[in-house]
């Protein structure tokens, strides 16, 4: 069988692996339940990794490496492959040109930003003239577990009065106004937002909003208002209690003396 000869050849194996990887990353991954399309930056990153893997595979064995180069060598020098050579001479520059055009053409979309989603919080903030130390601070309402249902109910009411239009009914950042924003509102159901943060961090973000982001948080166009201008300290803590209660996430806790701990990576 002719196809069998191709299937056993390292060059065509490499080509097939690259195509298969591209298909899986771009078309199969989004098909999984709850998944979404893979951003181009990640596709590029994955494909680069796969390409390195493929090149290692074809060249870590001398015999395989020689066989891998055979078709390339043949396409470049053999007279019988002159049409293929001519085709490649047109196709490769055309492909490079196409990619270059895709990179530089004008679009209406805002360019991707490298933003700090979780910028470092200050150790203390001023809330309506009162100094609040964030380091080591827990939600003060949790000191009264008997009233937590009432606080959560308060938080729910405040959330629906103030936060719903952007952060949505399901707390997933899909409110009515959400499509109009860039960056889009935070999705509290995602394990990468409040699930990774201490409640004092969330308090700081709610109280100070987009305008209160530190310089390292730029470029940043967050439309999040400075809620200290509209809500009391207790109301903000109630909303935070509700967010965790409703999503089921547990806030990150502070490390006590002698206990291991640090955040790592983008975690």
């Amino acid at each position: 069988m002719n196809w069998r000869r191709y299937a056993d050849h390292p060059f065509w194996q490499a080509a097939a692996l690259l195509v298969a990887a591209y298909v899986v990353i771009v078309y199969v991954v989004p098909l999984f339940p709850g998944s979404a399309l893979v951003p181009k930056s990640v596709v590029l990153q994955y494909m680069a990794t796969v390409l390195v893997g493929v090149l290692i595979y074809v060249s870590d064995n001398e015999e395989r490496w020689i066989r891998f180069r055979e078709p390339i060598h043949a396409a470049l020098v053999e007279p019988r492959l002159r049409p293929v050579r001519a085709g490649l001479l047109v196709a490769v520059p055309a492909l490079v040109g196409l990619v270059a055009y895709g990179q530089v053409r004008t679009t209406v979309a805002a360019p991707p930003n490298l933003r700090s989603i979780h910028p470092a919080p200050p150790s203390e903030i001023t809330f309506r003239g009162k100094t609040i130390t964030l380091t080591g601070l827990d939600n003060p309402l949790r000191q009264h577990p008997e009233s937590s249902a009432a606080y959560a109910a308060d938080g729910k009411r405040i959330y629906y009065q103030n936060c719903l239009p952007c952060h949505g009914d399901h707390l997933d950042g899909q409110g009515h106004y959400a499509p109009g924003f860039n960056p889009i509102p935070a999705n509290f159901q995602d394990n990468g937002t409040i699930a990774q943060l201490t409640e004092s961090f969330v308090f700081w973000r709610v109280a100070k909003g987009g305008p209160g982001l530190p310089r390292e948080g730029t470029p940043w166009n967050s439309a999040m208002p400075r809620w200290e201008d509209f809500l009391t300290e207790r109301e903000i803590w109630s909303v935070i209690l509700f967010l965790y209660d409703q999503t089921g996430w547990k806030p990150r806790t502070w490390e006590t003396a002698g206990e291991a701990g640090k955040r790592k990576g983008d975690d």
Partner: protein
Amino acid sequence: MADGAVMLLQAAADSTRAYGEFPVIGARAFVWITAEVHLMFAAFVLGVPMFAVVTEAIGIFGGDERYDRLSKEFTRLLLVAYSATAIWGATLVFGLSTLYPRFWAYLTAIFAPSMWVYAGLFFVESFTLYLYYYGWDRWKKGRAKLGHWTLGILLNVWGTVVMFIANSWLTYMMSPPRDITPTTDPTTIKLWHAIANATWMPINVHRVVANVVFGGAIVGAYASYRFLAARTDEERAHYDWMGYVGNFIAMSALIVLPFAGYWLGREIYQYDQSMGITMMGGFMSWLWVIQAFLIAVLFLTGNYYLWIGMGRIPGAERFRPYTKWLLIILVLGAIVWGTPHTMIADSKELAAMGGSHHPLLGALGVMSAKNTAVNLMILTTFLSFLLYRRANTRPVVPWAGTGTMIQGAMFAIAAGIVLFYGIRGYFVEAIVRIGFSVYQVLAVLACIVCVTVIDILMARGAQSLGAIRWGKMPARSQYALFILAVTFTWLMGLMGFARSGIRQYWHVWQVMQDTSKYAATPALGYASKMISLCVLIFLCLVAFVFWLGGLAEKSTFVAPGAGDEGGGRGDRHVGH
């Protein structure tokens, strides 16, 4: 916390020439380049002596003279590298004193005595090096040789103490003791109090280990350069073997390095959480994505070198079919390791994902996945070494089959523990999850230690399937060694920027503010270019040092009666 009035006073004081200016590139770029290149050379002159003294010891106690020649060959390179280190160090000091005079005056007010000790030790270190190199052939037998080896140890001791002293200055800038405030008169600060700051010892340990890695990588690069330039099979055999030894030491020490880095990260968090978050979760978190790429490159390249090397080992054929499975694990590990939690995406992609986190792949961007991936990659790399080591032998001990099964079981158990805690990490809160990484690491280390012990016992009296054909390596294997050295150097610059950049607009964190026009923390793109430039300058100079090494050897070779001084062509090394 610095108070605003003091900051204003500091700013006012700046009118009295607190900062100088350097033409064209500016003061910060000048100090950046000189500091970085000085540090790279410093790592060279600290890492290579460690390598030299270990290989000399193997030569003495193992009776294999090749190691002795290897050791001497590297010490020769050190002579030039020392000069380069001193020149760049002096340039840095002149740069600091003329471009940042106020800050320099502050540092000297605290650290002056340690600076005098530093200079004195550098002097002693240099002369120890001269004795070590020029006394090589005079003290080559018996007790004199042991004395010579002791000189090598002393060289390392002086170098390490010198590094510890310099580390105290830079760690003080990062983590000055909390009782020191902007109003503290620097002349009243006790020297030891400033030296023994929160990050001093973690940096010391991290740099010692990193220097071993760096030393091994530089040795590998030198060997590959000489291999590619070799004209005879003997030379190729010698430099092929040298490249292998360099790579082995670099990769072995690399396995320990993340743990030292982890300790340093912990100390930074405990000293100041805000500084820690800036480093790992804030704007510098993107550096860790680049770091992940580079570490994946290290793992893939290190393994690639070993797999190609199997081509020159009789008996390795039986293991070749397995390497593709190891490669698959490494590639998948690299994909997980490099998956960012917060993805770079345009507005359409953000809308489709429902945020910056991918609903499915975002799970690979968190600590549990990363730790699992890197631990499995370490295990895989260790397995590659094991296969390589065993390739040309067949164990003859009666329990060889059982031993191999136990080793296999240990790998399976370690991988199982890593996977179990990796998956479990998704279902517990952060404070518990962090502790899991310790169990994963312990499982991997325990596996490495136990499997190695069994392997050593099992190799006793093993039947040889043929000698390694040193020198029978394709050129691309040597480029892999180059890639390792370049990647290590680049990583050093990158992580150095992360460590230094988290001070942001402070010369001394929350004690002395940078009020120059370069106070803003540089953008990551600019920083990457600067780091790449430093790496390029360093590698060009190292290439020159390598070339000088070859030049000296040639002249020795042609000089009548020079014998095998220099240990190159005169060394008719043929491998084993």
